[in-house]
């Protein structure tokens, strides 16, 4: 269906179901219970899951397929964000033009950066992209202040022209919307002790993410995607097979830059502000971590990686000393203090330490990322099954 084979269609369907049901799945604990702080089903975080999912899916088209490791993709995210906010300032608060223009502008910018950076490969390519991203960051912070707002960043103001929107009612503030549906509006559903939030902005971002994911599957399965994998596998053979590697890698670079711009545009659509720190090199590094953590070159891996990192960033970092004391309260006093001081470095502001440890464990023991972990678990179960079915058990089709 949709030009996908059965296996890919099942994967797309699975992702679609998970994304639609996310407000339930991410809120498994009742409000007010001790575990409620592990709930991730609030709009802000759910939006970030899908937006960074898009960012990582796009990055994976470049890094996962061609093997070219860009350390500057946050620049495209930032450029997309600035483009989107200017659309909101000048044209309309409707998110459609903002998102559309963010993709176009990021695409043009990545074409220029890619054109130059792809003259080199390997570490030199990575350094070139990093240099471009840091230059963009510095420019946004300093000389480009009239366009970027410098340190303070940009926000839609009541006084902006917005030529397509009518004048705002007195006292009203400009809000991002999709033909009147405000991105910030939510429907809350309270069942028993549970509270589920269905946010308009999240579902808009989720639909965009599903389209982005679908397109990535199509690219992976196309002759174009195979050529990109061939670039990674053996560029020498590719050249001597009459294929020009440069336009293939450049196309992959621009596509992944457009994905980054799309993510940037969506960020603005959800939360109408931009700051230059969005382009800082750590933001570029984060998407690399997401891809590797989830599984480079796999379809679903980057989405999983993005989810895992954003979850830790937002949930682990919220745990503080008092909460730890509550957890270990059942222990005798002395041991409680020891346990709390042992765990404390890994939570709150120390969540990076936990991320670092997990990242190291994954790279060493699961080079294929979380996806490989999942495959290993699945294989364990499969091996057990035929034994239970007995000798006449039907063989399951290979996945």
């Amino acid at each position, binding site marked *: 269906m949709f030009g996908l084979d059965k296996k890919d269609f099942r994967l797309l369907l699975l992702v679609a179901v998970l994304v639609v049901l996310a407000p339930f799945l991410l809120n498994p604990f009742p409000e007010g219970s001790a575990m409620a702080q592990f709930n991730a089903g609030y709009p802000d975080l759910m939006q970030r899951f899908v937006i960074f999912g898009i960012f990582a899916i796009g990055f994976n088209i470049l890094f996962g397929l061609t093997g070219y490791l860009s350390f500057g993709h946050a620049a495209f995210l930032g450029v997309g964000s600035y483009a989107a906010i200017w659309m909101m300032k000048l044209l309309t608060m409707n998110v459609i033009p903002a998102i559309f223009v963010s993709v176009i502008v990021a695409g043009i910018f990545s074409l220029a950066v890619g054109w130059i950076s792809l003259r080199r490969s390997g570490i030199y390519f990575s350094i070139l992209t990093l240099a471009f991203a840091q230059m963009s960051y510095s420019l946004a912070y300093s000389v480009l202040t009239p366009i970027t707002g410098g340190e303070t960043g940009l926000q839609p103001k009541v006084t902006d022209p917005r030529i397509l929107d009518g004048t705002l009612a007195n006292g009203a503030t400009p809000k991002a919307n999709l033909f009147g549906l405000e991105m910030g509006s939510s429907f809350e559903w309270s069942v028993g002790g549970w509270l589920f939030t269905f946010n308009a902005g999240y579902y808009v971002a989720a639909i965009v993410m599903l389209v982005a994911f679908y397109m990535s599957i*199509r690219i992976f399965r196309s002759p174009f995607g195979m050529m990109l994998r061939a670039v990674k596998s*053996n560029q020498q053979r590719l050249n001597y*097979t009459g294929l020009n590697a440069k336009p293939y890698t450049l196309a992959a670079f621009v596509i992944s830059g457009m994905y980054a711009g799309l993510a940037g545009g969506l960020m603005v659509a959800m939360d109408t502000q931009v700051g230059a720190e969005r382009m800082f090199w750590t933001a570029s590094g984060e998407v690399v971590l997401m891809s590797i953590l989830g599984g480079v070159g796999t379809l679903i891996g980057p989405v999983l990686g993005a989810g895992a990192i954003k979850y830790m960033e937002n949930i682990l970092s919220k745990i503080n000393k008092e909460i730890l004391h509550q957890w270990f309260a059942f222990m005798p006093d002395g041991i409680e203090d020891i346990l709390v001081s042992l765990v404390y470095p890994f939570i709150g502001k120390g969540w990076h330490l936990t991320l670092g440890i997990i990242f190291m464990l994954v790279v060493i023991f699961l080079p294929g990322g979380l996806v490989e972990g999942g495959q290993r678990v699945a294989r364990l179960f499969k091996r057990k099954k035929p034994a239970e079915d007995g000798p006449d058990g039907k063989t399951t089709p290979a996945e």
Partner: protein
Amino acid sequence: MGILEVKNVGKRFGGLQALGDVNLSVAENTVHAIIGPNGAGKSTLLNCLVGKLIPDTGSVMFDGQSVLGRKPYEINQMGISRVFQTPEIFGELSVMENMMIPCFAKRDGAFTPNAFIDMFKDREIVERAEQMLEEMNMADARNDNAATMSRGNKRRLEIGMCLAQEPRLLLLDEPTAGMARADTNNTIDLLKQIKDERDITISIIEHDMHVVFSLAERITVLAQGTPLVEDTPDNIKGHPKVREAYLGETQDAA
């Protein structure tokens, strides 16, 4: 006039004159071997033919067109395919995908951003690649990872990939280097078969005299960057200059 005309080609690396003044003419539909001791400039010459190196002087004409200044992929699209000393294939891809890539390159050219079809639904390409795998006796290995194959099979696949492009000139750089005797003989048989069944010119650089004298119709002997002599295999065998420069140590192999 031959399909490949090399005239007065010279190439210098710093103080080393790798190629002096090479003249070579390869006639269409022949097997032409280039032999010579280590450091004779065989590989440098080959690299000048495929665009990896640009000679300092002279000209290289393929089928009446100059190849100088063209990139390797452009020269390949002109009809020259190259087989490497160590088999260069796409290790992470399946055997079938390996075979599909040259089929796409032949049909669609150097760059076609064909992102919206499933590659296995392209009947024309799939059929062509399957047919080539049949011809190479590799149909059973279709879904294997190319990196897991034996060296002999990798070589077979690489030659198959080159043939899938229907090149007019096939260049082989020591195709049996590092191979066991059985694999070497298989490769010789394969090349003989190719020569008999196709309208193709083969130019081969080789150390192994057994391979050279089993296949070649013309032999050029290169020594210190210049062609010493060019003749038929029978005449080369007995040529005193050649013995002196090269075969003196390996008479038994000849």
